């Protein structure tokens, strides 16, 4: 088993200037250690869609690596994304799936099928390569080569479940974070600050 904190740490050590698109519990740990916060997007308020946003960024900026920090429950909710990503075959997309078998954010209820092997599913859909890790040393040593290989790659990480005991606060500030991050990322990727305010939060 790997902890969220260790997994995020070793991924960040190897990310370079990759865009990151994260979701759920990973976002909390990623925000604490990320070395490139203006290349980070934490998908809140749109459960399951991190991999779809990451695919769009990867297709739109094919020279830049894009890492997606997805989770098992989110992926189950958007399972067709595996076929969509495999079909477009972006060489710069690295799809991490944190597998703990539970819905952490809502208190630790089990997934409908906790034994799903996401690496095998991605392989069956046609990802360029897939990997599965349950100890941090193996993950750490393999990541540089994985991130130097052609995508799309799925990296399944078996993590300790961390059921959240407190509810999620929905505030105007917390909901403004995603549109602010997306605008900062567009500015970083395009060099232009041309996406003005829109929607209820900014």
């Amino acid at each position, binding site marked *: 088993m790997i902890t969220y904190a260790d997994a995020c740490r070793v991924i960040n050590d190897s990310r370079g200037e990759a865009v990151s698109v994260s979701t759920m519990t990973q976002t909390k740990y990623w925000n604490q250690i990320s070395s490139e916060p203006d290349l980070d997007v934490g998908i809140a308020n749109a459960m399951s869609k991190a991999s*779809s*946003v990451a695919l769009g*960024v990867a297709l739109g900026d094919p020279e830049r690596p894009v890492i997606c920090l997805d989770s098992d429950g989110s992926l189950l909710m958007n399972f067709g994304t595996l076929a969509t990503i495999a079909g477009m075959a972006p060489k710069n997309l690295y799809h991490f799936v944190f597998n703990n078998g539970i819905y952490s954010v809502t208190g630790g209820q089990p997934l409908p099928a906790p034994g799903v092997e996401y690496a095998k599913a991605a392989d069956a859909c046609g990802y360029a390569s897939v990997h599965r890790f349950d100890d941090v040393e193996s993950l750490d040593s393999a990541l540089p080569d994985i991130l130097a290989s052609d995508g799309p790659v799925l990296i399944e990480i078996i993590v300790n479940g961390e059921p959240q005991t407190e509810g999620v606060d929905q505030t105007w500030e917390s909901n403004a974070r995603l549109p602010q991050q997306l605008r900062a990322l567009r500015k970083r990727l395009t060099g232009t600050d041309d996406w003005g305010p829109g929607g209820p939060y900014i």
Partner: protein
Amino acid sequence: MINGVLHPKNVVAQLVQQGVSHYVTLPDSETAHMYAALMAEPSITIVPVSREGEAIPVAAGLFVAGQNPVISIQNAGLYEAGDALRGLALGIGLPLVMFIGYRGHNRKGDTPDSAATFLEPYLHMWRVDYLVIESDDDLDRVPLAFERAAKTNQPFAVAIGTEYAKGDE
């Protein structure tokens, strides 16, 4: 569906004129010929998705990376994509033109297809502005959709109220 004639090549010409880079889509029976016409247009990349709920998030990612995507899904698929519309279009202020197949549409308002019955109330409920295209004569409205989306930083729907013609027929 009404009997207006809408040629895919004319819609593709509008997309090219607007500088569209990617066409994110889950094909439906009404827009099958549009897909074929797009295959012949090298400046636009087709991005097929497995379920309509993926279309808006993929388009959001493309836009963030500096591209100019549109999506094309059926009205029934737009209902499936409701949470993505809420969180990753309306919620983030995404200027996105959404081509929506208006399955079951007719001008008499008497349709047995609930996919048609609910489309316009659904768009009103989400506060999404829209226009309806029923033939080539309506295509001068397409630039308005792009203009409004860009001006408001909000999604704008173009409901396709007729089946695309096959080729030049």
